[in-house]
Each structure stands twice: as structure tokens, then as C-alpha cells.
């Protein structure tokens, strides 16, 4: 590897974000298992952080992001507050969604994050629509929609991507391929040549990248973003990575070979790889370590503060359903 022309500041920033995502999710898992503070299911993206960090580096808070049930990393990298996110996971007041959405519906409209989604693939058409509105309004923002490899077998994948091509919308579809559809190997359930081939068949420009190489993802996303901002047609990015945890934090993933996750960690952990890149580019071991420690400290503090935050008031259960015929007025 050579690092001539390596953008050191960007590289550092990418590692920092991946460390923060990892630390956030490690604390979230502890909050779930050790502390019993996260009561619902959470879907960690441990081992997949490069996709979130590499892509979001190229977006502003004006740009739009839609994500999946495994969306903590994307949301954090888009600029959401770690404290508001942790409060949301704990169902507390001051969470991104006031404690009403939880991990699977995390959203922060102030930073252009229009929601994770509890239904696989559902955001593909919605994201296309966000891009459609941007085009109608004549804005110059772009949209990124991230979904998993399981989503490519759902109908909205075809409907939403066809839509984006037909209407020439400023959107990047990202298949964050962690190789598992919940608890089943995606390859055993997918016909043909997979995600990128399907995108290509719709006439979409499609790029496949190593999903654990954050520098490569950032480079690729930068190119795609500049083409979209210049009015280019929708594009597709297939980033192949690996899900190190089970489907949820409490899934022991006994359905896969015992050493598979450990082997993958050794071979391709995106954080280890980026540390090596920065070390080779001249960053000191102490500086690299301090990024790790700062992230750990931030998320330990965040969990502590979130745990001390009260639950939402009971009346909130009837708030924000609708204006007309609101249940806050009468149950029926």
C-alpha cells in the first residue's frame, strides 16, 4: 500500500467515526445484556462501520439519508447526537424520537436522517420519493438510501430502483451486504448474480467495493456524490462486509460456523485496517489509541447520562398520532 496523496485529516476523521460507532454499539449491547436498560431488540452493525463512516463523510446535514433497522452507525455518522440516540435506545425523554421509536425507528430530521425502518427494504421507495421531491423543488441536495443484502429480495427494491432510474433522481442506493438475511445466509436465498447485477439490469451505474475498506468507500462515495450533485442519474454501490454479531444483540448466531466471526474479525475488521493505514501514513500509536479512548469515554458517559434521564410522560403515548381525530381527545 502506498499513501502518496493520502488525505490524512480525512483518514483520521474516518477512523474517529468508526471508533465512535463501535463504542456506541458496544455500550448499547452492554446496556441491553448487562444492564437490562435496552428492552427491545437492537441490531448492531459491529464490523460494518466502514460503510457508514465512508459514505457519510461525503454528505452534508442538508443531504438526506434513509437507513435500516441496523442503522445506528449511519445515524451517528450523519451527525446525530450520541446522547439523543442512546436515550432513544433506552426509551427516554430527549431521545431522537422522544423515546417512541427506539433503535429500529431512530431518526433525526435536523441532520437529514429520515429514519431507520423496521421493515426490510421499505425505505427504498420512500428514499426515491425524497429524491423525487428534491427534484420537483429544484434543490441541489442528494439522497442516500442504505439497505442490507436481504432487501434485494423484496419487491420495493425493484419498484424503488426502477422509479429512480425512470425519473432520473439524485439518489445513491447502497447495499450494505453483511451476508446474512436475519439468520439465513443470503446467498442461499438469492437467484442470479446478486445485488449489483440487479442494479445493472435496470441500467443503473453500479460499483462494487470492499465494504471494510473505509478509504475506498469514502473515495467511491465522493465520486458518486459529485456526479449526483452535477445532475447525474441514480447510482448503486454494493459494499460487501460482514456482520460480526447475531441478527440481534441477543442472537448467539449458532447457525454459522463457530469460528467464522472470529476469522472475519482477524481478516477484515475495518477499524484495525484503518488504524494500520494511519500508522503507515505517520500517525503515532498514541494518537491512534487516543481516538479509541475518546470514543469509549464518550459512549460510557452517554450511557450513564441516558440511564439517568426519565422516561417520557404517559401523555406522550397519545401525542403526534394525527391532528384530525387525535386520540388525545377521545379514545373512540
Amino acid at each position, binding site marked *: 500500500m502506498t499513501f502518496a496523496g493520502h488525505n490524512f485529516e480525512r483518514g483520521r476523521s474516518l477512523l474517529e467515526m468508526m471508533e465512535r460507532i463501535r463504542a456506541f454499539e458496544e455500550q448499547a449491547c452492554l446496556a441491553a445484556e448487562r444492564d437490562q436498560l435496552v428492552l427491545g431488540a437492537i441490531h448492531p452493525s459491529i464490523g460494518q462501520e466502514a460503510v457508514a463512516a465512508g459514505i457519510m463523510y461525503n454528505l452534508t446535514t442538508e443531504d438526506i439519508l434513509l437507513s435500516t433497522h441496523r442503522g445506528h452507525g449511519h445515524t451517528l455518522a450523519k451527525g446525530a447526537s450520541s446522547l439523543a440516540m442512546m436515550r432513544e435506545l433506552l426509551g427516554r425523554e430527549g431521545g*431522537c424520537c422522544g423515546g417512541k*421509536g427506539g433503535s429500529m425507528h431512530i431518526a433525526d430530521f435536523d441532520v437529514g436522517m429520515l429514519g431507520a425502518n423496521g421493515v426490510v427494504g*421499505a425505505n427504498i421507495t*420512500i428514499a426515491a420519493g425524497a429524491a423525487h421531491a428534491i427534484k420537483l423543488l429544484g434543490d441541489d441536495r442528494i439522497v442516500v438510501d442504505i439497505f442490507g443484502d436481504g432487501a434485494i429480495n423484496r419487491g420495493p427494491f425493484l419498484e424503488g430502483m426502477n422509479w429512480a432510474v425512470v425519473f432520473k433522481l439524485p439518489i445513491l442506493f447502497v447495499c450494505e451486504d453483511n451476508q446474512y438475511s436475519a439468520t439465513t445466509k443470503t446467498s442461499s436465498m438469492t437467484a442470479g448474480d446478486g445485488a449489483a447485477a440487479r442494479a445493472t439490469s435496470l441500467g443503473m451505474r453500479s460499483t462494487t467495493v470492499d465494504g471494510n475498506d473505509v478509504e475506498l468507500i469514502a473515495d467511491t462515495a465522493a465520486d458518486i456524490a459529485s456526479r449526483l450533485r452535477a445532475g447525474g442519474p441514480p447510482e448503486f454501490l454494493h459494499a460487501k462486509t460482514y456482520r460480526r454479531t447475531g441478527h440481534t444483540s441477543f442472537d448467539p448466531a449458532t447457525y454459522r460456523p463457530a469460528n467464522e466471526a472470529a476469522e472475519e474479525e482477524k481478516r477484515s475488521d475495518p477499524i484495525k485496517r484503518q488504524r494500520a493505514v494511519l500508522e503507515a501514513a505517520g500517525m503515532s500509536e498514541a494518537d491512534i489509541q487516543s481516538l479509541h479512548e475518546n470514543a469509549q469515554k464518550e459512549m460510557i458517559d452517554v450511557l450513564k447520562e441516558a440511564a439517568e434521564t426519565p422516561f417520557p410522560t404517559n401523555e406522550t403515548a397519545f401525542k403526534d398520532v394525527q391532528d384530525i381525530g387525535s386520540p388525545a381527545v377521545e379514545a373512540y
Partner: protein
Amino acid sequence: MPKLTYRDASLAAIQHSMRDDSTVWCVGEDLGRGGVFGQYKGLREEFGDARISDAPISEAAIMGAAFGAAMIGTRPIVEMRFSDFALCATDELVNQIAKARFMFGGQSRAPMVIRKPMGLWRSSAAQHSQSLESWYAHIPGLVVVCPGTPQDNYSMLMAAIACDDPVVYLEHKGIWDIEGEVDFSKKYEFGKAEIRREGTDVTIVSWSNTANLAVEAANALSGQGVSAEVIDLRSLWPWDKEAVLKSVAKTGHLVVAHESVAVGGFGAEIVATVAEKAGHTLKGPVRRLGAPRSLVSYAPNLEDMLRVTSEMMVTAAQETLKKAS
């Protein structure tokens, strides 16, 4: 006051809304040529193909994309062609659109109108004839309306387009051609029923085209010396409990009639509410008319077996009055 068809009244509402608000746009299959029932005719010529947008036959994408666009500051009018086809976009409507504002803690709104022409339309058979309004009334987050007259199809569509909640807008496709005077200045208030005919002996509650049949029934009953009050609910969520309870307090007799299947229908909700809040004021048994729990046939005689008619309402009114005396 112009005399307009039910179809043209909706067309005028869209035209007026789109002239007033550049963020209003329509999306659906075959809109460019005027829509499958002509309810978008001429709009493309005035507003162009970006705002009168054709769509692929992708109901999930039409619904989902319109929702995404609604969250970004536009006001889409979604055309589902037949309410039956909207079932292809059930996740988008029920899991996404209806829930987003709540799930995201009030961060988002989905100001959109979802037009779903429903109801019996001669020999359209089981997949083009359904009335599923009670399903939508069951879903928190949705406003559900069923206009039955040209005036309402103007005023209610204007209100739906201006509304910040998602509105499931169920027109009856059997009455596109009925005519009536339309006062463009008349405003519709959600949840406000229309007393289509005042009466003192029996209350008939209905909506959509069945409310028109209820007016016919009331006319027939009047010839028999029975004074029937006809309440056209117009919207099912919210629905005008006060109007119904007030009328029942006056008449003491209630007939509820709808075209959709009686079992689990919205009529049951009305009857339950009257029983709970005003059961003691009833002077006779409540009658509930809806389709038998069977499927709509192609053959006209079989199709008619499922039809709720004005004659049935007359009989039901007579029965509840007779049993009381």
C-alpha cells in the same frame, strides 16, 4: 353556482389547489391521459408532466415515493386507480405513512391525499369492487373520508389536500357522473356529518353512495308517513358521534347502512357507540345493513345479491318502528 359531476368537482378541487400551492402534485398510473376515470383530464396541459406525473404500475413505489416526497415538503395526491390495487401498497400506507409522525416523535409529517376509488361498478367482480373503508378507520394516524356528492367531492378534496395528516380519500366509482350544484366557497370541516334530510321518526346513518340511497329511502318512507333523518357521515375517522347521538335522542330509532361487508364494518362501531352512550334512549331494535360476508360476482344478478338497496333501508326502518310499537 356551477352544476358539476362528482368527477369534475374533484377535478376542480385539484385544479384550484394546484394553482394556489406549487407544492401540490399528483402521481399515479395513467394520469397524463387524464386518469382511468377522467378525473385528471386536462390537468397535465395546465400543470405539466412533473406535477401531473405518470407512474409505473408499481403501487408500492407510488405510495412509498409520495410519502418520501411528503416528508420533504411537497403535498402529493396519490392515485391508486382502484382501491383494490392499494392493497399492493399496504406496508407503505399502514406501516410507514400512518406511523411515521408518531414513531419519529413528531419530527415528520405526511401531508398527502391517497385517492382510492372504491365500491361496486357494474360487473367489475371481486378484485375491482371492494369497499374497505373500515380497515383504514382502524389504523391510528390516518384520516378516512368517503364523499358521496359533487359538493363534498369538491370541499372535502380541498380540505384533504390542505390537511397535514395523511387522508385516505375514498371516492365511489359508481357515481362519477352524478351531478349537483357545487359552491366553491363551501368549506368542509373534518368529522362533521351532513344532515342530508331532517326527520323525527328514525335515523339512517350512512356514507358514500349508500347515503344517496338513504335519501331515496327517506323519500319513500315519507310517502308512508314516516319521517326519516338521513345522516351522511362523510368521514369515518374522525366521525361525527355528536350528530348521530343527537339524532337518535330525537328519533329513538337507528338504521345504519353501508355497501361494505357488514361483519366488522364501520356500522358496528356506530351501533356500539350508540348502545354505550345512548342505549337507554332507543325505542326499538337497531338495524344494521351491509353486504353479506361473500365476494362480489361478475354476473349482474349475483352482484346484486350483495347490494344494499334503498328498499332494504325502507324495510329496516319499518321493522325497527314496528317492533317498537
